[in-house]
Every structure is written in C-alpha cells, then in structure tokens.
C-alpha cells in the first residue's frame, strides 16, 4: 500500500464561548496547517470537513464553512463523526488514486448549543430518547459496569483527572490546566454517579486541521513528513444493553489492525507516547485495556504505578487529553496532531524526549461505540 504522511497541522486554542464564528475557526486552523506544512492552498487537491448538523444548528453544516476551508474550485466532502474518522477518510481519498494531498478540517462550538439535549438525540427516538439519557448519564452506566468487571475504584478514575489536568499546563492550546488533588476530584460535585464534575470533560469550542500527502504529494511541502505506519477502525453495537460496556471489543479490533499494519507486537514497549480520547476519566483506563497495554480489568494498575505519567514508561495524554479540552468532533484530530508534534520533536513543554512512535485514538457514538487508532512516526 502507498504510504501516507501528515505534513501539516494546525489548531486553535480550545476554550468555552469563543467569539470566533465557525468560519473564523476553520480559516485559522486550515491556514495554520498549510503554513506549518510550508505550502499554499493550491497544493491541496481535495478537502474533507468534519462537522455535525445538530451541534452547529444548521442543515448541511459543512456547506457553511467550505469557503473558510479553502474549497473554492476543489473537491470537498464531509465526515460526520470524530476527526480521526475524517483523517481516515482523507487518507482513503488519497489511496483511491484520485488525489495526492488532502486537507482535513474539523470544527465545533459546544458552547452555542446544549450538550445534554444534543447528545440525548444520539439515542434511539423510539426506545431510549424519551427516557432523557445523554452522553454523561450513559457514560456513568459504562463507568459502573467497568468498576464491576475490573474492581477499579472511583479513586483510580480520579488519578486520571489529576494527571491529565496537570499535563495541560504544558499545552498552550488546552482549556483547563488545573493543579488538583485526588481529594479535589473525589469531593467535586456529583454529576451522574459514579461520575463527578472533575471526571467529566468540559464544553469546548475550537477547530483543528491536518494535511495528508502521499510520496508524490509531500514534495510540494517543506515540512518533513510524519508517516502513518498503521491505522485501524472498528465499531460495536449501538444498543448499550447489547454491548459489553465494560470491555471494548471495538478498540481491541481497531488497535490490533493498526498494530499489525505497523508491525507492533508489544505496544507498551514499542510505542513512546499515546494520545487517547478520555471524554470521561474512567475511559482512559478502559482504553488501556482495549489497546492491550494492560490485561482485561487491570487498567488501573498502570495509572497507580505511574506508567502513563509524563515521566512514566509510556506517557498518555501529555497534552492534557480530552478531559482538559473537549471540542467534540475535533478532539480526535487534536490527538493526531499531538501525536504528530511528538514524533517531530515539536511538542514544546509537553514533548516526550526521544519520542519516535506515537499513537492517536478517537471515538464516536455513545460510550465509545466506534474507535479509530493511528500509529505515526517520522
């Protein structure tokens, strides 16, 4: 298979209630990515936008930001889902043979709608929606299922929040850098038990963009390419009651495909840094298991032992992760950008020394129904 590289990355700051419009944010992210790559808009063969009509409050939300993405006269199409799936599609468009370069750009303004109402609408309108379930209350059901299966405690989840909010101090784009203790997380307001305020990611606004290119396409840009060594994606059942909520077989499926493609046998040893989609604290521990870093039910042992801390054997979320900024749809693309910056050695104060191989992860659907995993190295 033809090799595909990330040659440019750009992101806005993530914050709540940005004054910038969708167009402003998309233009900022897209131009930053193009300038990071050392190219110009004419070097882009096609564009993939990532947006969601319900979040944006308009039909065909992608149409509104096409001009800001530089799409005039170009082939443009849209993914409604996490940005990692946008990157995957952007990669496939190059692999189709039709294009040599793709710009992928994603945006969200979580602060302009009402998260609970919007995520309530992702549930089945006939059997589930009228109950009032939403992203947070369904995640709480998953957190408890995971606790039952694994024996993990709320204190273990709190350690993830302490680590990631602390890491966010090193990321100039992050929304919520916080120096908090385990006690602070445990004492924070109950939201949907067992989840407390500091177990939950914030409402965020922002945009992110990447440029993908094949071996021909990279010649148009000045930046050294970061190659996608492996990619995998997999989805599980939509109905929560008919999915093993405590064990993510979709992440297992996605990561095994990515590992196989990248020739990785022992991810804990062979990968230097990971950026995971921790929309809620407990998820990071579950994802450790899905990614094969710990045996089933033993994810908490990694956080307790500091394995995934900045100075640990495998740092996870040096950026502060999704707990520190949660621009929905953008967040997975931000993970891929962070992974790219790490392997380039351009991650600033959040740089993991000598990082050569990085993993980025995104999720889509309630309680991580679908997963997408990228492995990248220079």
């Amino acid at each position, binding site marked *: 298979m033809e090799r595909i590289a990330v040659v440019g990355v750009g992101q806005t700051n993530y914050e709540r209630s940005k004054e910038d419009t969708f167009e402003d944010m998309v233009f900022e992210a897209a131009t930053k990515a193009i300038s990071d790559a050392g190219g110009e808009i004419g070097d882009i063969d096609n564009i993939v936008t990532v947006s969601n009509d319900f979040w944006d409050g308009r039909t065909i939300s992608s149409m509104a930001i096409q001009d800001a993405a530089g799409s005039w006269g170009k082939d443009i199409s849209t993914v409604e889902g996490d940005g990692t799936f946008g990157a995957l599609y952007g990669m496939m468009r190059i692999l189709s043979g039709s294009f040599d370069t793709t710009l992928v750009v994603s945006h969200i303004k979580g602060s302009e709608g009402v998260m609970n109402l919007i995520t309530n609408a992702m549930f089945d309108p006939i059997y589930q929606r009228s109950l009032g*379930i939403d992203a947070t209350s369904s995640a709480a059901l998953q957190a408890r299922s995971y606790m039952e299966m694994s024996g993990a405690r709320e204190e273990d989840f709190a350690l993830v929040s302490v680590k990631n909010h602390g890491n966010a101090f090193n990321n100039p784009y992050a929304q919520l850098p916080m120096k908090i203790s385990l006690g602070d997380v445990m004492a924070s307001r109950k939201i949907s038990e067992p989840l407390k305020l500091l177990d939950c990611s914030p409402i965020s606004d922002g945009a992110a963009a990447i440029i993908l290119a094949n071996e021909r396409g990279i010649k148009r840009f000045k930046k050294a390419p970061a190659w996608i060594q492996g990619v995998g994606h997999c989805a599980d059942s939509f109905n929560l009651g008919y999915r093993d909520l405590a064990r993510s077989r979709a992440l297992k499926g996605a990561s095994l495909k990515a590992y196989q493609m990248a020739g990785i046998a022992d991810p804990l040893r062979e990968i230097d840094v990971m950026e995971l989609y921790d929309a809620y604290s407990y998820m990071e521990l579950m994802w450790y298991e899905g990614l094969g870093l710990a045996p089933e039910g033993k994810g908490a042992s990694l956080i307790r032992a500091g394995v995934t801390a900045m100075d640990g054997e495998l740092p996870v979320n040096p950026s502060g992760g999704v707990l520190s900024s949660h621009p929905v749809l953008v967040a997975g693309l931000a993970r891929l950008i962070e992974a790219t910056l790490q392997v380039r050695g351009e991650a600033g104060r959040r740089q993991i020394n000598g990082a050569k191989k990085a993993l980025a992860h995104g999720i889509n659907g309630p309680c991580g129904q679908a997963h997408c995993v990228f492995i990248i190295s220079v």
Partner: protein
Amino acid sequence: MTDWKDDVKNIVCPGRIKVPYTWSVGETGSRFFVALRDNQEIWGIKCRACGKVYVYPVKTCPECFIQTEEWVKVEDTGTLESFTIVHYSHSMHPFKAPLVYGLVKLDGADGALLHLIGNVKAEQLKTGMRVKAVFAEERKGSIMDIKCFAPA
C-alpha cells in the same frame, strides 16, 4: 490606534430549531408496543442463528446479520446490570433530578433494556439487584408504558 470594537460587545444571534417528527415505529416495534399497551406484556425477538433474545426487539440480528422472526415473551422481572443517579436536570428528562437510569436484563432476554429505576432509595441500589416493571396506568404504546423498574 483604538478599535471601535473595544467599546462594543459582540452580538449573539439566538435561535431555536423546532421541527416536529413522526417516526414510524415499524412492524416489529408496533407489535412490541401493542403488547405492552394492551396486555402489559414484554416481548422479545429471537435470532434463529445465535438464539439471542432481543428486548427491545430488532428486525435484524446485529451479530448474525439475518432477519429475526420468532417472538418470545420475556418476564417483567430482571436483574440490574448497571445504574446511575443523575443529579442535573434538563428539558429532555421526564421529571426533575434526581433520576435513576438502569440497564435491566429481563428474565428470558440476552441483553439489557435501558430504563428508569424508581420507587427506590439511593442506598438500596446495587448491581445484581432484582427489579420488576411498573406499568403506567395510562398506556399509549410507547416505552413510557413502562413507568420504571422498581425493586422486586
């Protein structure tokens, strides 16, 4: 140079999308809701390949990717697999917080049904507890014909 914007607040355009929908429940769902409404019975549908019983019923088995055809009555009692107590209120909730959601594996079904858990004290709640459906007095052919599941 002073910018005129220094003295002016950004303008916000408020909006609201209000679109009524009439989703067809379909043949499978209609059978399920009619039994619930008229007889206070909960029916599932069984996959002939893997033998799994689905409640709510599904027209196709997601694992075997074949049509399901055999209806089986399941019990109105079951086991609580997971639960959460929600402490916030929004307009999509059927009533004000606190509310309790649970995943209830009904006796005779292979997976869990998401629903409200009621008539229960917080300290009573634990996974593995037995619950029983409380049917609404006035039933209209919807998932709310089950008012909630309460300790059995």
